[in-house]
């Protein structure tokens, strides 16, 4: 056999060539992603039409024609409506938001005492930020400060009546202050309560199990408004004569119990997803029930259901807007209330105020959902298939 019988084998790698011109660059991207087929082209054109119809008018309304500052309604009304704008004018009335900003944030909280909620907000951010950044040190201390010390300090600062701080009644609270307080307390209370309810529902003790099931299913079956109704009209009837509750506190109890029932179902999903071997392994190590749950089961179960937990938080944050029904003034309610302010009433005011409120709610909810996605990726230990 001679060498010539062998087929020719290349000794060095072929030079990598750039992709053909039709497969790279903007043109190829456009062809692949926008005009791949006839149907695709029609869809793209329809989509472009939709964007062309909506986007310019939104930009025009929200920015170009918008009025940013002004003393009263005249800047946001046309001549026919008693204002200064030409007929046919239509634009956002950010001047209204600007003028009412303090109310939207704090409600009727006394002007000279507003440094107190601001201080609480600063403390809140200062403690929350390192808690959310995974690399920041002293997580344990931080968590204790955030979940135990902050509520006490915030209570003293916001309610007052001690240490020389004047008492501020809760009916004066309003705006974003109420929204955030309700949701923070709701979150802090509903998670542990929900975990306990979920454990109770999976307990082997029939009485405990029944109590938990009845509670969870009843609350989940009725709207939050009904729960708030109960908290505001029925609770006073349930208590001995003369014992009264702060309305704010009643709403807090209603919201927390409501969220806890949903949380319980989310956590139960996580508990069920943990393989039986983990429970049995913990038992065979001689761990007690609480040790088993605390060290083995819950860390794995809660990690699995982070998206569900955050979804419940987001749902609760949005649901705090319902306290409007029992005439408390959260952000949305105070925006709504200001529509009827005669010095600002104009056809553009409601939409402007509502879009401002929507933007605030959206920022918080979107932030929460993005952070949960980030945590999910970080905590992913690669056990997934």
């Amino acid at each position, binding site marked *: 056999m001679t060498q010539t019988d062998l087929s020719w084998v290349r000794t060095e790698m072929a030079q990598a060539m750039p992709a053909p011109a039709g497969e790279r660059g903007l043109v190829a991207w456009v062809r692949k992603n926008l005009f791949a087929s006839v149907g695709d082209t029609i*869809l793209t054109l329809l989509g472009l039409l939709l964007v062309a119809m909506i986007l310019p008018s939104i930009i025009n309304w929200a920015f170009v024609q918008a009025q940013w500052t002004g003393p009263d309604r005249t800047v946001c009304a046309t001549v026919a409506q008693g204002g200064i704008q030409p007929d046919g004018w239509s634009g956002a009335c950010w001047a209204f938001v600007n003028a009412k900003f303090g109310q939207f944030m704090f409600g009727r909280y006394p002007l000279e005492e507003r440094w107190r909620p601001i201080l609480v907000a600063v403390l809140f951010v200062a403690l929350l930020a390192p808690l959310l950044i995974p690399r920041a040190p002293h997580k344990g201390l931080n968590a204790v400060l955030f979940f135990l010390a902050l509520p006490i300090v915030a209570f003293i600062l916001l309610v007052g009546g001690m240490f020389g701080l004047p008492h501020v009644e809760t009916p004066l609270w309003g705006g974003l202050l109420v929204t955030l307080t309700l949701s923070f307390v709701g979150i802090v209370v509903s998670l542990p309560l929900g975990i306990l309810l979920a454990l109770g529902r999976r307990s*082997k003790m029939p009485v405990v199990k029944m109590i938990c099931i009845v509670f969870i299913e009843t609350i989940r079956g*009725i709207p939050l408004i009904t729960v708030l109704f109960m908290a505001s*009209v029925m609770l006073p009837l349930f208590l001995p*004569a003369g014992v009264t509750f702060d309305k704010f506190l009643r709403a807090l109890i209603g919201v927390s119990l409501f969220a806890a029932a949903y949380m319980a179902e989310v956590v139960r999903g996580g508990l069920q997803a943990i393989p039986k071997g983990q429970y049995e392994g913990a038992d065979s190590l001689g761990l007690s029930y609480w040790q088993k749950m605390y060290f083995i089961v819950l860390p794995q179960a809660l990690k699995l259901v982070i998206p569900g937990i955050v979804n419940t938080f987001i749902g609760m944050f949005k649901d705090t807007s*319902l306290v409007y029904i029992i005439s408390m003034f959260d952000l*949305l309610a105070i925006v709504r209330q200001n529509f009827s302010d005669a010095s600002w009433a104009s056809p553009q005011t409601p939409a402007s105020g509502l*879009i401002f409120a929507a933007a605030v709610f959206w920022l918080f909810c*979107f932030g929460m959902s993005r952070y949960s996605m980030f945590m999910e990726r970080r905590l992913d230990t690669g056990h997934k298939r």
Partner: protein
Amino acid sequence: MASQEVLREEPTRGSLINDPRVRSIFIQVVAALALVLCIWWIVGNTIDNLQRLHIASGFAFLKGRAGFDIADSAIAYSSDNTYGRAILVGLINTAIVALAGIVTATIIGFMVGIGRLSNNWLIRKICTVYVEVFRNIPPLLVIFFWYFGVLSVLPLPRDSIGLPFGSFLNSRGFYFPRAVWGEGSWLIFLALVLAIAMSWFVARKARQRQMATGQQFPVFWTSVALIVGLPLLAYIVSGFPLTFDLPKKSTFNLTGGFQVKPEFLSLYLALSFYTAAFIAEIVRAGVRGVSHGQTEAAGALGLRSGPILRLVVVPQAMRIVIPPLTSQYLNLTKNSSLAIAIGYPDLTAIAGTVLNQTGQAIEPVLIMMAVYLGLSLLTSAIMNVVNAKMALVER
């Protein structure tokens, strides 16, 4: 043997405290006692309070004269009717808005959800923006937006915006032609029922034949022909009994036609748009939950993309989609109680009025709870049937 006997004996415990069975019984007895005591205390307090405030109790108030008007009522109602009838009106209104919302939200949700999986970049982005915007704002805000931001700034009735098919839109709502069923129109309904029954029968037979022989039958087009054709035939045979009452512009108002009030419209639109964002995410997760191997295997069998979607992907995706879809339907029904914020007379709003008028706090809230629980159970029962039909049949 002897050693096994020894093993089977209960190990002796130091004390009763460490015996799990004793502990469990003890905890349960304490829990039950605490619950009973709590209920006893609450009931006692309530009875005291009711007596002190001279509030009647019991459901006798349902027979009393209501004395308030309801703006939007599907059944005949006046302020002389009873509280019971008022609550019934509210219940029907809740059911109407929930049902209409569920249908619309499902349609929008499926379209947007599939749009988010499209190969088309623009469509994908538009759908993503829709979902991210509506998922992250409170439903109450969406309702307010439609009510105060859009519908109440529409022109007055005399400069109504004309829409196709003789319908009008103005600040008092949406007007469209009302169908007036004349003599002999029962024949059309009969034909429709007959057509539905026949197409069900055809579908059944076609399926049996396909199972036995493998031959297919164009069930879809046959059903369309039946359901459209038969009523049309009946319409012609019975002498065109259907006429339309068109809304007409007069100097200050629109007369005639069917008016949909802005309260209903904003609640319905808000609930549909809000829930659709969640349904879209569920649909997306469902379709993505079907493994790619299924699509590839179907392709390897020679199916084209249409049949792959219809016969392989969608039936499997539906299994993942239906349970969370059910809970979204329940959420929509519960969220319809937000009607109270804009004055649409749904169950919560009317029960709230009854509560204020009679002063009886407990009974209206109990009725509300019972109705919503009932609606929830009904919806989940229906969806469970659907789910059972869709579920994987294993040997």
